[in-house]
């Protein structure tokens, strides 16, 4: 079972690597590959750190019931585009462009509800037990379950967060990792794209030991 999953994963990443390397298309004039936006690593790290702390914390407070709450679903529904548009429209002109702070706010607003629901849905049921044993035990049970979940959750969602902030970056004028990914596609920087895919594949590889724990 584990060997089959590993083979499937390796095949998928291998295919992604091959696609990145053989991306069709050409440019009118050859252009040098864009430099990697090193300055975006710290804001991205901050955003991911905030998400990695806030989502488990909210899931711990809300428990498995949070996954079925309608308000959370309503917050999860608007696309990134809407969050960024609303932020831009509501941001006072006198404050100047939203910049990294605005981007972080929009990122959390767009990503947090979905991640909280993801974690809450993965928590084990609490009725009749441990609910019958009291709130303290419930909190402890949630904490233990989340401790098991968090590392796997990070490994599963990190590639998405790293690359899916493109819309927010474009709208708020904050060049980051999502923009870098798309620039390399538009500029047909096949080596750069392959490096991205290889880095994400490495992340998957590092998360393999965690995965084996989940398989009986």
């Amino acid at each position, binding site marked *: 079972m584990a060997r089959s999953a590993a083979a499937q994963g390796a095949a998928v990443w291998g295919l992604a690597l091959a696609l990145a390397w053989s991306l*069709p298309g050409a440019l009118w004039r050859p252009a040098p590959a864009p430099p990697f936006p090193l*300055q975006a690593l710290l804001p991205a790290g901050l955003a991911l750190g905030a998400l990695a702390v806030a989502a488990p914390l909210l899931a711990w407070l809300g428990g498995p019931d949070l996954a079925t709450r309608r308000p959370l679903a309503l917050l999860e529904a608007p696309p990134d585009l809407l969050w960024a*548009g609303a932020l831009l429209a509501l941001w006072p002109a006198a404050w100047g462009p939203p910049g990294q702070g605005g981007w972080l706010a929009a990122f959390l607003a767009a990503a947090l509800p979905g991640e909280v629901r993801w974690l809450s849905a993965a928590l084990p049921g609490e009725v009749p037990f441990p609910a019958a044993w009291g709130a303290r035990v419930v909190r402890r049970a949630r904490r233990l379950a989340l401790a098991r979940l968090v590392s796997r959750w990070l490994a599963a969602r990190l590639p998405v967060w790293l690359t899916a902030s493109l819309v927010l970056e474009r709208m708020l004028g904050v060049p980051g990792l999502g923009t870098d990914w798309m620039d390399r596609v*538009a500029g047909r920087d096949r080596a750069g794209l392959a490096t991205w895919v290889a880095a994400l594949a490495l992340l998957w590889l590092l998360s393999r030991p965690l995965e084996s724990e989940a398989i009986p």
Partner: protein
Amino acid sequence: MRNRLAALTLVFLSALAPARAQMVEESLPRDPGPLDFIHGDSYEQWILQSLAGDALVGLDPGGRAVPRLATSWKIQKDGAITFGLRDDARFTDGSPVTAEDVLWTFAELRRDPKASPTKRTILEGAEARVLEGRVWIRSPKPPGRLLVELARVPVAQKDHPERGSGPFRFVKEPAAWTFLRREHFLKPRIDGIRFRLLPDPATVLQALQKGWLAIGAPPARPLTPPATHRVVVQPMNAQLVVWSRTGSGPLQLLERWRQDAFPPGLLGQNARPSRGLWPESLGFEPQAIENEEVGPPRPPAVLKLLYVSGEAFTENLLLALRERARRDGFDLQLIPLEQALLVDRLRRGDFDLACSVVVFEPHPWAVLEYLEPKGPMNVTGWRDPQFAALAAGLRDAGGAAWRELQNLWARHPAALPILDLQSVIWVDKRLDAGPGVLGLYLGTPGAAGWRWNR
């Protein structure tokens, strides 16, 4: 007495305090990459280089060569040009710009295969040396062409491809490209310019309306600028061009349709139907296709047109063109492709009709890219036995030789412009900035000539 003393102190302190720099806030649609006078090659990179660097000559708002690093030049009988350099030009580290830097820049561009393809094309076959204290350059190209093209080659300091001598000093900030005024012979009057990366047109509009940008291009649809901004229409030597690999017949149809296909409301200020075959903005008279041997196809017929997807303005205009074709009984099928995929199809010759925006250099020789055997716009393999002889006779802009060449092209053209494009931008009313043939930045004095009306 105490009040008067306090007021005097305030006045004194305010005179001592440095005035807050008033930057011109601008946006870039794409990341230009690091400032690099050797390798950088994109429209955004041109803007960076024109602010932070100086070429031997500049182009004035009318497109004529004017002194920049060179105070004067002489065209010799053999076609070589000699330039006398000014002695007050300094790189950002304070060292003077010398003939050695000019030669190093040219040599590096020719030596490095990864150097800017545009600059390498400009310097193809050129020789450069120092002769009697002047920079001497000879090229297979006519001197009139070489002179205006050299305005596209800013000089970098020897062994420092990132260092120029322009009117602004470049500072890279985390999410911005900033240029600060420095001591320079063009005497820039604004404190600086800051570019933010705003790829999304709706965001640019939002930023303009909120007053976060002093200059910006609104989306291509009729919009009223905010009260703080005025509309400036920039001339662009740009056209939406259709190439045909199936002969000039389909182009004859398009020549007819372009006259009445586009509703004025759809065109707005951003475009107007093209006339003729080559850009009027480069001085060419409108010329009709004169192919008497091959007529246009007869309806009903299917025409397949590839175009670059994702640009709503162009897509709407092409839909209007499709409706016009339908009135004549033709089925014009529009096939959207991503930019790089379209270029790939053009290179491979895998198309019947394809259209793309072409931005010409601001001189008539730019159209030779359609006709030269290895010209980047000669995607159909166009050739004519008379071309070489006619091209050899093109010494200066304008004149009978150009008319003859256009007549030759008109007999069996491989491409036809359907729209002349121009750029509509909104500029802060307090900023005195006027465009030239190269837009706001790329001419001389360019941004160094702007000033704030305080």
